[in-house]
């Protein structure tokens, strides 16, 4: 007969246990007090902060339970366990069990003061709590008091602050998160939160919660009074043990369980936050998941034992990097290594005993936390690397494998160049046949000839193969036509006032008569950037897309992308686009990531007529093909969004109207987000603006392509005009000093963000001069190339075929 398994509680622990269990062997009934399925409670903070939706954090929905053949009784509360008759009792009736699992979790601990039952006092455990908090945040000038400065309380405080509430955190102890942090890290955290505008009061003893029909204020024993529309109880959790106590099952702080998750009663098991194992009650999820695995095995008759894992803590507050694990109290026989950088707000502390790491606290920079955690778990003796230990893995000479050894160990079949499918053996063969530098290997094998990201590896293969004969490449010329670098070329163009491609080639001793497809577009760009008024753009030195003002596709057709300023369009524009798509038989219409519409599969000869039609509706080139300004992505900002702090759309349009048409070393993409939720994804752009209540955060040098990189702060300013000046100056500086085909993030990495800030932010005079030079260039280039290229003279000179011999053949 199938075993009747009854589970009380549909939370994360029981959900994981059911996942681990072979459910076909049981007849399972699941009771849950909340009228909804199982969701990831850990992610309630992001839901509260508005960073995620509730449906994103659901882990098991009704369909999942149905698939597993589990009967769900959500919203039905178990009020009693009858051990003798092996029944559970609910107001709706009784349900028999063969085996019973108690997974009732925990409830927020409501500190025992007067007024703790007033409406407006909530815990932070479930979705109902979150909804109550969001309702309070929607009032005018809302104020919240969070009681408890631990993990949960601070996440709630940060989220409520983000929702626009004035937030005060009252914490009983001397410093925040005292269970996870030492005083120094607690201090840094407090400073960070206060810097964001969250009021933090430590050593705060709550005397009473005041209010008539609803909470109005919190009073401290010290006499301070904090007005509040909402009070969040986050002073700890209390295991939900009532059912077990009533059934005379052993309960300490939580329901007592042995290593197999069995309670003191026959056929009754328990797991999750409601249990106590070996005198410890757990509140973090990792150990609960371990319990789930153990209990699933126990129920299936296998032996398993719960071993308390080492648990690390990270705070889920955006922008706060904090990590702690292990034991970090001071004590006999313990040593510590501490690193502090107050200016950058970085603090790292390792606690050692017998030359082993037993505790780690990190604040501000937690990049190496995984490495330290591994060392802690493995119990490795660190005496050998103690001197540099605190600096992390990058400074451990012996830890890093010699990269050459790595390459030497690769088999000949290992692929080095993914773009062109070139393996190590092919490269080695080419080297043995006489290709002894990167350029030669590129020419013979195509390795590193496409994206170039493997050129370091190719050089390592060279070094390994040639041994002592290998010479590290001198600063290479930009192509086979010259030995000069991009930087040299730019410098000499400027100092010698070389105003044409032939002049540059002559003066700089080009080795070829008229360059190649690598150097000519670069030279053309440098001359445009240096002499916008004197130099005539050389179309024959432009890549096809920039010559034809459309993107060539694999079959020789083109894609046409009209500009949509800031991503805003109108019914008229959409009609014109739809009409053009039909008229020119566009097979594919695609919406781009930059908030534009892409018309793909246009025949070359149709381009000018199509542009003329689009021009007629006021649409201009979107420059989706250019090394120039592509798009300024925006969200709808304060115009429509209930969270928007500024007119992000309007600012985006202003930026785009100023910047469009400009040529740059590589493509440039901007975004403006109306609030820190950052819906326009501004923090991975070449230049991103995040609007905040007090102004605008401008950051630069992000990347979201072959490499992924967050932007770095340039400056925070108060007005739109300042944003525009910064953006223009930054882009002009990039135009004037970057190597062709370096995106801004690569250029900034070369010149240093500090230098960029000096030039663009600190030196107002220089910023104005950059803006002025940009405007001079734009007096020539801020124009629609489609309108120009659709003129009749281009039809005969460029777009029409030179001759049609098919007619002659027909004669």
């Amino acid at each position, binding site marked *: 007969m199938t075993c009747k398994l009854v589970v009380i509680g549909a939370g994360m622990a029981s959900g994981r246990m059911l996942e681990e269990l072979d459910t076909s062997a049981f007849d399972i009934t699941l009771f849950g007090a909340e009228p909804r399925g199982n969701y990831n409670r850990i992610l309630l903070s992001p839901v509260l902060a508005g960073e995620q939706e509730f449906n994103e954090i659901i882990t098991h929905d009704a369909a999942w339970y149905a698939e597993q053949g589990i009967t769900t009784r959500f919203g039905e509360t178990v009020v009693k366990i009858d051990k003798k008759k092996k029944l559970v009792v609910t107001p709706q009736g009784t349900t028999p069990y063969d085996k019973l699992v108690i997974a009732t979790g925990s409830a927020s601990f409501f500190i025992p003061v007067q007024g703790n039952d007033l409406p407006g006092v909530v815990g932070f455990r479930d979705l109902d709590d979150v909804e109550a908090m969001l309702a309070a945040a929607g009032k005018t000038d809302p104020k919240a008091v969070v009681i408890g400065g631990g993990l949960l309380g601070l996440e709630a405080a940060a989220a409520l602050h983000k929702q626009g509430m004035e937030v005060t955190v009252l914490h009983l102890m001397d410093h925040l998160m005292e269970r996870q942090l030492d005083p120094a890290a607690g201090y840094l955290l407090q400073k960070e939160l206060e810097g964001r505008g969250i009021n933090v009061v430590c050593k705060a003893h709550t005397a009473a919660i005041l209010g008539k029909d609803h909470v109005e204020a919190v009073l401290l024993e010290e006499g301070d009074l904090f007005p509040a529309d909402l009070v969040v109880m986050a002073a700890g959790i209390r295991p939900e043990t009532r059912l077990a106590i009533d059934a005379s099952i052993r309960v300490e702080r939580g329901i007592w369980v042995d290593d197999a998750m069995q309670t003191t009663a026959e056929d009754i098991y328990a797991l999750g936050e409601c249990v106590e194992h070996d005198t410890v009650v757990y509140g973090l999820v990792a150990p609960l998941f371990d319990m789930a695995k153990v209990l699933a095995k126990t129920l299936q008759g296998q032996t398993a034992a719960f071993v308390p894992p080492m648990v690390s803590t990270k705070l889920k507050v955006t922008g706060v990097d904090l990590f702690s694990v292990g034991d970090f109290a001071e004590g006999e026989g313990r040593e510590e290594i501490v690193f502090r950088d107050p200016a950058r707000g970085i603090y790292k502390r390792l606690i050692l005993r017998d030359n082993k790491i037993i505790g780690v606290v990190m604040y501000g920079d937690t990049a190496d936390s995984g490495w330290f955690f591994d060392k802690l778990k493995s119990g490795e003796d660190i005496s050998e690397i103690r001197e540099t230990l605190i600096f992390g893995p990058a400074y451990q000479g012996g830890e890093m494998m010699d990269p050459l050894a790595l390459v030497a160990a690769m088999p000949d079949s290992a692929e080095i160049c993914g773009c062109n499918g070139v393996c190590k053996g092919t490269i080695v063969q080419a080297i043995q046949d006489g290709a002894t530098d990167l350029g030669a290997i590129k020419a013979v094998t*195509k390795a590193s000839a496409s994206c170039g990201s493997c050129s370091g590896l190719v050089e390592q293969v060279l070094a390994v193969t040639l041994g002592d004969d290998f010479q590290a490449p001198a600063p290479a010329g930009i192509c086979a036509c010259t030995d000069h670098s991009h930087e040299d070329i730019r410098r000499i163009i400027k100092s010698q006032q070389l105003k044409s491609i032939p002049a540059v080639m002559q003066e700089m001793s080009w080795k070829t008569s*008229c360059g*190649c*497809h690598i150097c000519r577009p670069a030279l053309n760009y440098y001359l445009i950037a240096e002499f916008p008024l004197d130099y005539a753009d050389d179309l*024959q030195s432009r890549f096809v897309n920039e010559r034809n003002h459309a993107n*060539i596709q*694999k079959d020789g057709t083109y894609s046409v992308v009209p500009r949509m300023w800031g991503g805003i369009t109108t019914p008229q524009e959409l009609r014109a686009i739809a009409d053009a798509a039909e008229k020119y038989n566009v097979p594919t219409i695609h919406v781009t990531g930059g908030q534009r519409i892409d018309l793909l599969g246009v025949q070359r000869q149709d381009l000018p007529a199509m542009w003329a039609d689009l021009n007629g509706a006021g649409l201009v080139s979107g420059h989706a093909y250019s090394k120039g300004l592509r798009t300024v992505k925006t969200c709808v900002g304060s115009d429509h969004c209930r969270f928007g702090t500024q007119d992000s759309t309007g600012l985006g349009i202003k930026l785009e109207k100023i910047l469009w048409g400009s040529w740059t070393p590589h493509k440039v993409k901007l975004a403006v987000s109306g609030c820190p939720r950052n819906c326009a994804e501004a923090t991975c752009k070449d230049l991103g603006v995040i609007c905040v209540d007090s102004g605008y955060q401008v950051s630069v040098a992000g990347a979201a392509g072959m490499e992924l990189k967050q932007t770095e702060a340039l400056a925070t300013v108060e007005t739109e005009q300042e944003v525009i000046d910064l953006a223009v100056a930054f882009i002009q500086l990039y135009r004037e000093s970057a190597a062709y085909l370096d995106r801004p993030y690569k250029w900034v990495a070369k010149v240093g963000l500090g230098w960029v800030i000096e030039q663009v932010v600190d030196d107002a005079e220089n910023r104005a001069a950059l803006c002025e030079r940009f405007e001079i260039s734009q007096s020539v280039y801020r124009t629609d190339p489609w309108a120009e290229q659709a003129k009749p003279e281009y039809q005969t000179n460029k777009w029409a075929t030179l*001759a049609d*011999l098919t007619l002659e*053949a027909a004669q």
Partner: protein
Amino acid sequence: MTSWIDIAALDDVPPRGARVVKTAHGCVAIFRTAQDRVYAIDDACPHKKGPLSEGIVHGTAVTCPLHNWVIDLQTGMAQGADEGHVNTYEIKVENGRILLDSTRLMARTAA
């Protein structure tokens, strides 16, 4: 035997550029180099049929706009590591006019 057809003025093709002539068996690209020499080759790269007429012309070669194969305009042969070739056609300039030998083009059409 050659059969010259006057297809256009030399100045109709930009220096270091190309224009296209339609023929019954496909497009032929007419190139003009910086030194005003002209070449005619099939307008389809041996690699993935990229339109060579849209490539950057340098020396007596063109770089295909799709994947940067470099094709020698005199021989039609791919350069460097790439292997492949395109058809070339007889062409000359007389009195500022470009003349293309249509023998092969016509023969093919007839065949």
